[in-house]
């Protein structure tokens, strides 16, 4: 019981972190599934989402147009809500542009898609530096979701609860979307056999564009939710996207719940090692990955997938 008392807060933090990792990884996985492309720019789009949100919430966030003065006189919660909706849409737009560039690599070695998105990651990160500068930015939060609560003599940050609840909500919504809607069915079918989907008369070009927009939009959502926890730096994307790779491989490519479980596992491992050996908390997830993948080559719940071709 005492052990649980000491571990509890770290486990809780770990679970919150894991849920957010899973959110990043799921957007990433949608794109892998349908497009057969590893989007290395996912992390940069994650960061871009956070920056756009900063611009929409904070008056010093980069939008220095005097015409916007009435907008910035609105309450912070209103502006925050606007940012949560508009920033992912803006990033989804950038994602669509990227998909248009990617079209030239379809039907060729998948390596080219990987390389193109790597270039895009570089370009987006440099653009962020150009527009917002290299210094760290802060995302102002509505007061309702800041501060702390005391439970069992320990202080927990309210925002972490909000972020976890938000992540759980998004994951469930995403699952319902994939399970219960026509588009969800198309996406799953596209991930299974995109040529067959095309043969059945579905506009595959448009489906890919939408999936890419959707996946990158999810990256932006995760970026906004993560912003108050990790801070907003041009380089923050790498911190987000690399755990996403690890989660995808660990959970098994193409498995929705595999990614969620892997996200939670990694969050908890990072949280627990953070408690006992802070310096090593980020290494632990790779150790976990290597251990699991050595035993189960396709990850926890993975099936044979497009990536092995």
């Amino acid at each position, binding site marked *: 019981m005492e052990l649980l008392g000491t571990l509890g807060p770290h486990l809780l933090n770990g679970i919150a972190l894991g849920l957010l990792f899973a959110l990043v990884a799921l957007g990433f996985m949608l794109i892998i599934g349908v497009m057969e492309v590893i989007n290395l720019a996912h992390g940069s789009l994650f960061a871009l989402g956070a920056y756009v949100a900063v611009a929409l919430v904070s008056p010093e966030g980069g939008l220095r147009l005097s015409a916007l003065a009435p907008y910035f006189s609105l309450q912070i919660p209103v502006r925050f809500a606007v940012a949560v909706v508009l920033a992912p849409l803006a990033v989804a737009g950038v994602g669509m542009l990227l998909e248009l560039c990617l079209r030239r690599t379809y039907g060729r070695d998948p*390596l080219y898609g990987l390389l193109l998105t*790597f270039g895009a990651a570089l370009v987006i990160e440099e653009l962020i530096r*150009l527009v917002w500068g290299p210094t760290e930015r802060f995302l102002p939060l509505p007061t309702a979701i800041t501060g702390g609560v005391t439970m069992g003599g320990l202080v927990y940050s309210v925002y972490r609860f909000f972020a976890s609840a938000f992540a759980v909500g998004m994951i469930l919504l995403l699952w319902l979307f994939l399970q219960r809607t026509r588009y969800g069915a198309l996406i799953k079918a596209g991930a299974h056999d995109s040529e067959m989907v095309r043969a059945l008369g579905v506009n595959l070009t448009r489906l890919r564009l939408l999936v890419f927009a959707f996946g990158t939009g999810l990256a932006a959502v995760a970026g906004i939710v993560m912003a108050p926890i990790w801070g907003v730096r041009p380089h923050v994307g*790498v911190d987000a996207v690399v755990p996403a790779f*690890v989660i995808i*491989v660990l959970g098994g490519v193409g498995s929705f719940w595999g990614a969620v479980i892997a996200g939670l596992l990694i969050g908890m491992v990072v949280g627990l090692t953070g408690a006992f050996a802070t*310096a090593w908390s*980020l290494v632990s997830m790779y150790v976990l*990955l290597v251990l699991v993948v050595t035993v189960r080559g396709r990850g926890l719940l993975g099936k044979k997938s497009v990536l092995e071709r």
Partner: protein
Amino acid sequence: MTVGNESRTLAAGWLSPGMLVAFAVFGTLPLWIEHVGLYRYLGVEILIWCLFALGFNLLLGYTGLPSFGHGAYFGIGAYAMGLTQFHLVADLWIGLLAAMLAAAVVGGGVALFISHRRGIYFALMTIAFGQMFFFIASKWTSVTGGEDGLLNIARLPARLGVVAFDLTGNLAMSYFVFAVFVVATAFLWRLIHSPFGKVLRAIKQNETRMAYLGYRVYVYKWASFTLSCAVAGLAGGLFAMAQNGAYVQVMSLQWSGVVVLMTLIGGGLVSFWGPVVGTVVYFLARDLLGAYTESWLLWFGLMFMLVVMFKPEGLAGLWQEAVARHAAHRRARAGALQPAASE
């Protein structure tokens, strides 16, 4: 896409026209680099990264395996160079050997885990391992100096029997790095044009077929990865000398990506010398574009995207195409003349 079109002419030999050009340019580099407005250290840097990129291309261009974590092995080489010097013995050759061996041992260990993987899955695993080493290096402060790096690595004199060359100046360093480059390049060239290299290229084209033909694909991929890491370690060891220190930044995902950029822009997928061309272009862009704008990486990144979209064979691909077109043109003209001559 055939790698190494040059191989048709002098594949069996130790020399090729491209090699002569590269050696002539890099060998005389210290003599004229300052006259074109650049500086000697840049030459050292370019040669080291050329070596790194050539070794990397053994994996990417010849075996078809993309590694996005190669900076890790470069960094391990750099640390090994410093650590042998500080704790073991202050000898240049032993230091370089240790740099190569350390990278080869770590790379070989990683390759055990990932050699049965293919394509993008392979790439993801290399990212994971690369990041793991990056974090270890940045946190293991007692050994690597953490974020500050391993400082004061000396440029030890190169002892050859009774003579010893002092390498503290950039001129001597240039010639030394060039000498190492020549040896390593000759080795890579022979390797690629050996039966072993042929198997690697065949694996790139169709791994399953090679497995059915009875080749132990796993072993070949393992060897390719390990050798490539050894070259990266050697380059890293030289870099630690050049910089007088080993820093963790080179192990980051971004620097691992830079070597991919260099290799691809130059045309590593179609030519042995592609990575060299790409490295030179990268450093010139850094120094020349960088003088005008701080965001030169933005423009370089855009250029890279355009290359991937429209000309993935890179600059070497453009060159080969131009040569082929010229040859076809000449043939056509000769063909047009012949009937006239016979009349």
